[in-house]
Structure formats: C-alpha cells, structure tokens
C-alpha cells in the first residue's frame, strides 16, 4: 500500500508503541485461544440490520481505506475485525438514535467546533445522508460509485470529505457538512476496531493483540513491581474470550 503513507505511519506508530507497552506473546506454549460462546460472524455472511445494500458497499470500501487489512500486509484491518458490523449495530443502539442527546436547535453551521455538532441529525441520519451525498459526488465527479473507484481515488474522496473540499451544500445537503459525516465515520471506525468484541467489532480481539492491550482483565496489582518483565498474557474480552 505505497499509496497509503498516512495509514502506514499510523500503523507503524501503533506497532512502535506496542514495544513500550508490554507485548503480547504466549511464550508458555499452551494454546489458550478461546472458544467464544457465539463465534464472531463472518463479515461476508453478515446481513446488515440498518444499512441498505448500497450503503453497506460504501461502508465496506471506506472502512478498508481507513484501516487497511491483512491484504495490505499491515496486520488486521477494519474488515478483518468486523468494524462494519460494529457500525451497523451501533445504528440500532441508543447512540444511533441520538436517544439521549440534545437535538433541538439552534443549529449554526459556522459555529465553533467547541460547541459540538451543529446539525439536527441522529447518527443514523448522518450516515444515510452522508453516504448518499458522497455517492452523488462520486457519480458526478467520476461517473462511478465510491466502492468502484480505485484506492487512490477513494482516498482522495475521503480526504475531500475530511477537508470539506466536497461541498455538501452544493449537492443539496445544507444542514450538515462533509467533515461532519467524515468525523463520524472515522471515529466510529476506530471505536469498532478497538472496542470490546461484545459490540461487534475487534473480532477475536485482533486489534488488542496487535497493540498489546490485555483487555478486560482488570487485575494488574501483581505487575506493579515486576520491572522489565514482558507481560506474558494475551487479552481477555468481556465475554470471556481468551486470546
């Protein structure tokens, strides 16, 4: 993925920091890879609950650009770890419905970022409208859907969203900017990658294993005074899966 200097350097950074955090390794030789009660679904067989077929194709392609996977030779990616499943499930949660958010106006598109989101949409609507606008832009600009573009072009589109170079207002969406959508997509993708597998992403704790995070063990008292000793245990998830 020579076309992905940013992602590669971020990955390298995560890897680098993993040497500061005790690294994961089952030096003991006993295989403790666990049987989860309900094995994580295969992404290819998953039927999205919220996203439509076209939206789903966009998400698969976009997530793969944000955190490229094994196929890029750089460790587990968003698709390897079921991040799109995490996103789909979040859309059906209180979060997706913005159930507890203040959703009344006024909304000021030019308001300071300190003032929080300035659009009347729940995350469900942010994704629906954001994906629709992005697809409309790709058709206008490239004559193709986002997922049909090559990797470099997809990255250019995502960067255009991030920088508001793609103007949602000119495409007909006047209440939300492209960067609003992009920040949701990027933030939620990272969350799905790094959060506990109970939420649908981070399949088999692959992201935790990569960064050396031991998961939901909550018990490190005995390591406070063990200096310069590699932490030998793989992670454990909320559901008790052991890695």
């Amino acid at each position: 993925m020579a076309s992905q200097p940013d992602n590669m350097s971020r990955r390298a950074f995560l890897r680098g920091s993993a040497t500061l955090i005790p690294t994961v390794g089952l030096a003991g030789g006993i295989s403790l890879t666990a049987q989860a009660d309900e094995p994580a679904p295969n992404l290819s067989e998953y039927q999205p609950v919220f996203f439509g077929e076209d939206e789903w194709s966009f998400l698969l392609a976009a997530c793969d650009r944000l955190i490229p996977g094994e196929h890029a030779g750089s460790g587990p990616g968003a698709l390897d770890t079921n991040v799109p499943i995490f996103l789909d499930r979040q859309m059906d949660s209180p979060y997706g419905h913005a159930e507890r958010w203040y959703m009344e106006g006024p909304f000021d598109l030019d308001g300071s970022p300190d003032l929080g989101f300035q659009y009347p949409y729940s995350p469900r609507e942010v994704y629906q409208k954001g994906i629709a606008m992005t697809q409309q832009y790709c058709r206008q600009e490239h004559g193709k859907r986002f997922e049909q573009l090559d990797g470099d072009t997809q990255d250019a589109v995502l960067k255009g969203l991030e920088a508001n170079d793609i103007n949602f207002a000119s495409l007909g969406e006047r209440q939300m900017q492209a960067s609003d959508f992009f920040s949701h997509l990027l933030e939620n993708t990272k969350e799905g990658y790094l959060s506990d597998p109970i939420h649908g992403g981070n399949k088999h704790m692959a992201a935790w294993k990569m960064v050396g995070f031991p998961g939901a063990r909550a018990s490190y008292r005995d390591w406070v005074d063990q200096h310069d000793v590699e932490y030998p245990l793989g992670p454990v998830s909320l559901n008790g899966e052991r890695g």
Partner: protein
Amino acid sequence: MTARYLIPLLAGSTLLSSMPAFADTDDIVKRGAYLARAGDCVACHSSPQGKPFAGGLGIESPFGTIYSTNITPDKENGIGSYTEEQFAAALREGKRADGANLYPAMPYPSYANLTDEDVHALYAYFMQGVEPVASQPPKTSLGFPFNQRWGISAWNWLFADAEPFTPQASHDELTERGRYLVEGLGHCGSCHTPRGIAQQEKALGGDSEAYLAGANLNGWWAPSLRAGDGDGQGIESWDTQAIVDYLETGRNVHATVGGEMTSVIAHSTSYLSERDLMGIAQYLKSLPANPTSDDAASTEAREQSTDETAAHLTAAKNLSKGERLYIDNCAACHFNAGEGADRVFPQLDGNSLTNAENPAGLIHTMLAGARPPATSKIPAQLPMPGFSWRLSDEEIASLATFVRGAWSNDAGPVTAEQVAEVRDSLGDTPLSRAPDPNGSLNHEDGGQ
C-alpha cells in the same frame, strides 16, 4: 412437669384459663421478640410473599414437602387459642394443641432446652407482639407412611429428649450462654450436624463428636462449626471475634456468607447482641475440631503451597486453563494468593465451601454469584457477580478444579457433568446476566 409452667403463669396472670389475660410488660414482649430472632422462627414460618409468621413456606424433606404453619395469634388459622402450656409443648416436644405430633422439620429437639422464662417471653411476644394473620397456609400432605403423624412418637422416643438446659460447671457463664443459644434456639445443628438414617441429627449437644461436624444440605456443604484447633481450614482458623463478625454482618477477615446461611444472618444472628454472639463464638471454639486425616499437611507445608501457587500466578507463565481462567475472572478480587480482602472479598485459601467434598456450593457460587445480607452494621451488599453467562461447564470445571487444589486447598477435581447438573438446577440468576452493550452505560454515555 406442670410446675414448670405454673410459675410464669402465676407470676404474670390472674386467670389460668383465659388467654392472654395477663399483661406482660413491654420488656418481656421485647425479650420474646429477641428470642424469636435467635430462633429464626420467621425464616420457616413465612412464605416469600407472605406476612411474617403466617406460614406457608414449603420445606423440602426426603419425605415430601412440609408446609410451615401460621404461628400468628389468629385464633382460627394461627396459634391464638394456644395456652402457654400448649405453646411450650409445641416448642419443646413437637406437640400440637390437639395432641398430634409436629413433623421434626420443626426443630423441637433443639428447642427442648428452652428455659421456662424464655418460653414465657416467646409466648408473650407471639400473643401480643405479632400481628394476627387470617390466612391458612397449604396443608402438608406427605405420602404413606409419613402422613401417619403418630409414627413420629417413636422417632421422638428414639431421637428427641426434652431435656431442659442445665449449665455445665466446666464452662464459664458466657460460654454456657453460647451453648444454650447454639444447641437451643439457634438450632445450628439442623443444618450443620450430620443426619442419621432416620433423618435425625446424630447429636444434639457438644458432648458428641458428630455435633456440628458439618453436613450436606440440599447439595451445599454446611461446614463444620467445631472451631477448636484442627487442620486450620474454615472456622478452625477463625478467632472468636471473627465468628462474632461473621454472625453479625455475614463478613469477616476470612469469609463472606453464601447459600442458606445468608438468610440466617439477615433475619436472625445479625439481630443478636454482641455479648450473645461472643458466647456463641466461645462455645464453638470450645468444641474440639473434627479429627484431621493422617495425611493432612503441616502448617509449614500449607504455607509453602500457598506461596507456590501465588508465585506461579504472579509470573503468569505456563498456565493451565484453570489458572488462566482464575487470572481472567477471579484474581482481581480474590488475588493471586487467594487471600481476598478483609470483610470485602472472601479468602479462597482454606475456605470451607471451596474445599467441601461436594463441590455443588462452590459451583453454584461461581455460576450464580452471591449477595451478602444487608445488616445494620454493614448495610452495603457488595455482591459477587455470577459467571454462568460467561463461562462454559468445562471452563467452570477447570476453574473449580484449580481453585480446589490451589494454595493450601486439598479438595478433589470437578467435572463438567457436575457443573451441568448445578447449572440445570439454577432458576433466574439476577447476578449473572450478560452485559447489554446497549444498556444503561451506553445511555449515560451520550455518544461520542
């Protein structure tokens, strides 16, 4: 015989035949209420949704379900028409007012030691301090031959002797007070003394080695209460203050209560005075411990095993499945040395439930969790969560097997089949529900 009852009647009443014509002082009624707590009458004589003392609790026995009776002073449904003499006969001899025998689910062989003064106070409380409830609990109907209540007379003749309490000269006064409560109202032996072939407690007093030596109770091990010096497991390692703390709050520096004893502490022992509890503790400490087996490890060897397990878990290398499961699920509270934390997390090293021959109580606690009682001295109920949603039968078996052999523990392994059996018997386990990823935390979170 009758003289025993006459004295309090004459002292407190003007008419022997009318009831309750005498006016007992509030103090006597209060004393009766205290004694009723000591006897934990309410535990059996109330159903979960029912009014106190109105009966109706189904008590499983090997002979069938025995329903407890209404012992409120309601004249039709309760014991409101009992004379004090009839009340005393029910308590001490298991005789109903009509002369029929009570089933020995009622611990009258223990209550037989009650002094006249205490029977009188209890009578005063049940007649004047308890709200009458006009409801009839289900009738007990056991199959033949156990529906033949007359047969119990033979059982009584064999196993129950209504001996009033006589202090032993060899004990000090407080220890004797403890013995009176333990052997009598406390009826500790009902659960903690092994039963014989006729379901009788093998001993009713501390002069026998079988008394309070530990027994299986519906699959749980009700541990030995013989607290004298022994192999150092369970209560044998507790001092008198630890016993007092446990009875008063369900927690001490070693253990936290679980199983049936939770309700005993909640409804009975937590209401007793510290002096009475100290008497109980002293009496239990006076009982020589169960004989140790010949191959029991020395204190030094036990300490060494404890250190070895702790060091192995701390290094966290070459772990068995059970050891890894302990680190992932248990060690945050019970710690690598299995020592727990004073009054908060029970110690697993040397714990009587962990080491019980029958592991059902341990398995039950692992699957369903446990919630200590709220007592006036420690109202907080920091519960242990259950792990039935998180660990499979095989995993619980590996974990239990490890814990029973870890540190100085020396109990046998546990199979997945044993775990499956306990799991099947569990009803709703509110402490063991899988977390809902979209539950309240997510709500409170409010988004990104």
